[in-house]
């Protein structure tokens, strides 16, 4: 039987094996839409050399970090990700940048309002099982339409930092919405090694590559720190874990873990618990989130970078990470 650490270790190989066909194919089919790369981004106009990255973890629902940011008159740069973009707009925040990365063919487009929502969600409970947005869960079709309208109204005000590996329905949707689009290539391996997948994709699209850390939230940090060269960076919504009272069945990998270990056998061995150093609350994680956590901590250590984690919850803490409240970062 596989242990928790075995599962975590296997995620890289699983991702590489199953995503490589999709990302190479998408990278080629998107070439005709690529007019500007992130090399063409205009200089930052903000005077404040700091940024807040809005990731899309559950704390955006249970904490008031988004509202704090919205009412703060913050003058720094705001970077959202696809999954938090509409939440930002609903809170009254128009991000300077939005990142999108995931190549999933039916799920990702939801974050921009999905014109084929009913068809794409057919037989797929990935979101409905986990959704903490009660309004969306109860009125998903109406909410989806409202999201389409909202994104159409605001898209022109935000620069979309879009991976060349994005699926065709996302590309179609964001073009229709009117985003100012800047393309990049996910750095998925060392481009100097023989048969590098990154180099192979680069030869088709000629786009600059950025590391992703395995997920779009970490990719947003890489973009902000190493592309925009912003020194002081905070994240909100980067939980990488769940509140202790959330049922395991509402977590992202529950069906797979219960199939692997048996529903009745799932316990804290498969969902390790951590005490958040800022709030003292207990959160648990799953193999995928734990893998994201390990990746970003390694990347921070390897590059001697620092990060303010203002999520006010979750399991992201360690060397080079300072957990503080968002109001204190915004001072």
């Amino acid at each position, binding site marked *: 039987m596989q242990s928790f650490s075995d599962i975590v270790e296997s*995620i*890289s190989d*699983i*991702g*590489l*094996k*199953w*995503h*490589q066909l999709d*990302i190479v194919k998408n990278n080629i089919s998107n070439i005709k839409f690529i007019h500007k790369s992130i*090399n063409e981004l205009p200089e930052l106009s903000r005077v404040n050399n700091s940024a807040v990255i809005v990731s899309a973890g559950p704390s955006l629902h249970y904490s008031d970090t988004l509202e704090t940011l919205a009412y703060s008159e913050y003058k720094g740069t705001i970077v959202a990700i696809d*999954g938090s973009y509409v939440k930002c707009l609903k809170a009254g925040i128009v991000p300077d940048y939005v990142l999108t*990365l*995931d*190549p*999933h063919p039916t*799920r*990702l487009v939801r974050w921009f309002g999905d014109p084929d929502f009913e068809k794409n969600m057919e037989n797929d409970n*990935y979101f409905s099982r986990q959704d903490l947005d009660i309004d969306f869960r109860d009125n998903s079709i109406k909410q989806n339409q409202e999201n389409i309208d909202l994104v159409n109204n605001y898209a022109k005000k935000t620069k979309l930092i879009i991976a060349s*590996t994005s699926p065709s329905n996302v590309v179609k949707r964001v073009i229709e919405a009117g985003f100012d689009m800047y393309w990049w290539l*996910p*750095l*998925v*391996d*060392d*481009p*100097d090694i023989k048969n590098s*997948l*990154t180099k192979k994709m*680069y030869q088709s699209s*000629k*786009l*600059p*590559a*950025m*590391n*992703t*850390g*395995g*997920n*779009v939230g970490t*990719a947003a940090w*890489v973009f902000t*720190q*190493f*592309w925009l060269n912003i020194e002081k960076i905070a994240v909100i919504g980067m939980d990488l874990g769940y509140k202790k009272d959330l049922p395991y069945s509402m977590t*992202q*990998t529950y*069906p*797979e873990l219960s199939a692997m270990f048996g529903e009745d056998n799932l316990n804290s061995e498969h969902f390790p618990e951590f005490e958040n150093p800022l709030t003292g609350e207990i959160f648990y994680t799953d193999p*995928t989130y734990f*893998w*994201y956590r390990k*990746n970003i901590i*390694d*990347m921070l250590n*390897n*590059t001697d970078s620092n990060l303010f984690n203002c999520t006010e919850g979750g399991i992201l803490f360690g060397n080079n990470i300072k957990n503080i409240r968002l109001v204190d970062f915004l001072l």
Partner: protein
Amino acid sequence: MSDFLKGNYDLDTIIQDDKEEVEDKFRENVLNSIGGSMVFVERKKMVWDGNDKSTEE
């Protein structure tokens, strides 16, 4: 060539090759299990601009 190998009899039932369907199902399960994860192997290089000499932060 397949015409020469098909035999001299007819089958009453239609045989369907379900290999692709099984692979698709497996692929779907695997993709579900890694959520929104992206391929991630490289831990030191943060950006790369296509030059032969990579940028290591």
